[in-house]
């Protein structure tokens, strides 16, 4: 340690070639070899005041785990990460690292930052592939029971911690399979289901019960759950689709990204008719929006055989909210990007199928409240793009079922659940976190919120601080 010469370039991630991978749903990045991981880990300067950690929402012990990788102690590295991040194999794959840990890494100032996400993924994959995942210890039961509503990353992270501290945890999920966006939103070519299932398997080894097909607010209300549980954590996400509100949006062939991705990811419409759920994906697909959701929809459409997939975005490349890697991958897969363009109308054929998107050019005007320059329409610039399938990926809204059926739960103006610093809501015994509080954010932020709420719940039930070094 200490005497390393910083000569090496950042290790590139081996990936499957684009023309091969658009024909299946297998994962795109192959993952570092042990040699590559060690070489990449050796680039880390082991800073005394590691800036990278500041950029990570859950403060993963980055220099420590990277050093363990440099020393070839891979499974130990995974365990080090798990002290603050229960699901490194997931975060290593889906965190927008370039805006988080890798943004603040000092190496980034003069060159490329340490590939923290790839190393995180490597360590977790190694541990799993070599069967070195430690069986969780079974702590003495505390006698407290907690209900977690929603099985997305927020709910799962909260459940994992609480179970580790000896509480009895039940997770309620409305779908027939757990995982939230990790299962119905993020495609397998970015997050293989084996990775997700391994994390869920770990959770069940911890003794967490997952009750699928249970809609809180319908199957039972929060008040009813409070009769069974000492505390509730609400992590129901922001899963409601937004539409554009333009004429023609209800034509056939127009999907919300949620529906399109759910049909494929959760229901396996890519394998219709072997699976019973169908999906329509024509040759000309237009995806409206430019976040991760839009990239996932566009790349999924390519894999369903669409010839021309065009992303239409009303701002410019610089404002695209998607992870850099997703944008690069989409472009490698021949997804076309049209910037400064906004659909104003969809027109259909006689049978009601969308056939033409009327688009208007935009230009950037004054900055808006987010500091980004506001797109303003260029009058008279309308033109037509042909389409068979239109996928709308312009954001999402809070899931209203729990707030609507829990009268004393305070919500913000836009329907998000209000919490204090401890994660507590206005209703005694009820905590909340993740997208249902913040609006659509990131996997790791939802997990961070889940863990903070777990700590608060533990404190409120036991009057004690959670056990240290929750081992993972």
């Amino acid at each position: 340690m200490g005497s390393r010469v910083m000569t090496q370039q950042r290790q590139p991630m081996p990936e499957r070639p684009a023309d091969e991978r658009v024909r299946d749903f297998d994962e795109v990045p192959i993952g570092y070899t042990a040699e590559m991981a060690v070489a990449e880990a050796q680039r880390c300067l082991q800073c005394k005041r590691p800036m990278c950690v500041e950029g990570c929402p859950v403060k993963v012990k980055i220099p420590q785990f990277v050093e363990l990788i440099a020393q070839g102690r891979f499974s130990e590295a995974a365990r080090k990460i798990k002290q603050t991040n229960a699901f490194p194999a997931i975060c290593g794959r889906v965190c927008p690292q370039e805006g988080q840990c890798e943004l603040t890494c000092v190496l980034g100032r003069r060159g490329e930052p340490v590939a923290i996400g790839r190393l995180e993924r490597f360590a977790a994959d190694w541990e799993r592939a070599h069967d070195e995942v430690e069986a969780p210890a079974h702590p003495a039961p505390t006698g407290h029971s907690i209900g977690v509503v929603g099985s997305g990353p927020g709910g799962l992270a909260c459940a994992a911690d609480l179970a580790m501290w000896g509480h009895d945890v039940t997770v309620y999920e409305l779908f027939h399979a757990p995982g939230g966006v990790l299962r119905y939103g993020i495609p397998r070519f970015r997050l293989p289901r084996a990775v997700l299932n391994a994390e869920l398997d770990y959770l069940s080894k911890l003794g967490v019960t997952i009750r699928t097909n249970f809609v809180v607010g319908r199957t039972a209300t929060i008040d009813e759950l409070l009769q069974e549980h000492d505390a509730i954590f609400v992590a129901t996400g922001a899963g409601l689709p937004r539409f554009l509100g333009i004429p023609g949006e209800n034509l056939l062939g127009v999907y919300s990204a949620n529906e399109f991705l759910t049909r494929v990811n959760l229901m396996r419409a890519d394998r219709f008719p072997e699976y019973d759920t169908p999906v329509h994906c024509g040759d000309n697909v237009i995806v409206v929006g430019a976040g991760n959701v839009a990239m996932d929809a566009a790349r999924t459409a390519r894999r369903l055989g669409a010839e021309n997939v065009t992303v239409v975005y009303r701002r410019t490349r610089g404002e695209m909210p998607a992870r850099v890697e997703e944008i690069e991958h989409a472009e490698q897969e021949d997804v076309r990007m049209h910037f400064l363009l906004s659909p104003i109308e969809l027109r259909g054929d006689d049978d009601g199928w969308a056939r033409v998107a009327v688009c208007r050019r935009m230009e950037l005007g004054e900055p808006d409240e987010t500091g980004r320059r506001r797109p303003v329409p260029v009058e008279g610039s309308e033109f037509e793009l042909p389409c068979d399938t239109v996928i709308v990926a312009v954001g999402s809204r809070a899931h209203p079922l729990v707030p609507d059926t829990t009268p004393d739960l305070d919500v913000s103006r836009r329907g998000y659940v209000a919490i204090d610093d401890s994660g507590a809501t206005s209703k005694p015994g009820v905590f909340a976190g993740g997208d249902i509080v913040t609006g659509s954010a990131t996997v790791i932020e939802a997990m961070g919120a889940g863990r903070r709420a777990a700590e608060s719940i533990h404190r409120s039930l036991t009057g004690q601080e959670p056990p240290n070094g929750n081992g993972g």
Partner: protein
Amino acid sequence: MNEIVSKEQIAPDTWRLVVRAPEIARRRKAGQFVVLRVHEKGERFPLTLVSSDPDAGTIELIFQAVGTSTKLLAALQPGEDILDLVGPLGRPTHIEHFGRCVVIGGGYGMAPVIPIAQALHDAGNELVGINGARSADHVILVDRMGAICQRVEVCTDDGSLGRQGFVTAVLQEMIEADERIDFVLAIGPTPMMRGVAELTRPNGINTVVSLNPIMVDGTGMCGGCRVEVAGETKFACVDGPEFDAHEVDFDMLMRRQRMYDGLESDATRMFKPHSTPLDAPAHEGCCCEEDRPDGK
């Protein structure tokens, strides 16, 4: 979970199931539905909760076996479980004392009429039932309608039972005869519901229909079930399924209902009934186990 307690064929292709689902039974209200999945590769599809018995912890479903999923459901035997069953979903029907109500069911649409008619009856309304079907053997639930209605008019397309003609003809006669009608409920094939809406529109008779667009989650998360009501987009699964008949865009509903018909008929052609769906044990070790880490 979700064990089929009893099964009965009540018409050609139409089945009645009683299913153990205590949590749903406890909370069910008129107008609500469940979403089911019959096997590991199955799709999610909705069925109305016809009745429930909270004490026995059971619910009643009545459905017509029209395509892959409903045929697979019809192939299940008492003692077997429905793989996934979630509910109760949808807004409960708005029930009040309207006065004299006409409740109309066409074909298997009679099934979803029953719980609402029952609730209207319990709220002190006076009911007239119109029960329409293709032919005599497709007429269902006349007895149950009879028990809560002042009178039940049966009509069949071919005249093999009751009067010959459509339910709309009966309703039209009632309107022309100046019978008092304070409220109309109509559930059945979309053209029938539209026909009823057109009949009651001129007199401004309060008319409600229950829409059945294609659904996936049934909880507001996909927007696949969107319908246009009074020029606004609504999600039938959470904003409905019942809407003011005079405001519904039935053309759009019909188009969207047929969105997958080309694809579905391929699937139906490939359908071969198994004693157990998929030959494989329906609840474990199946090829898509990867989506069932909870071991269900």
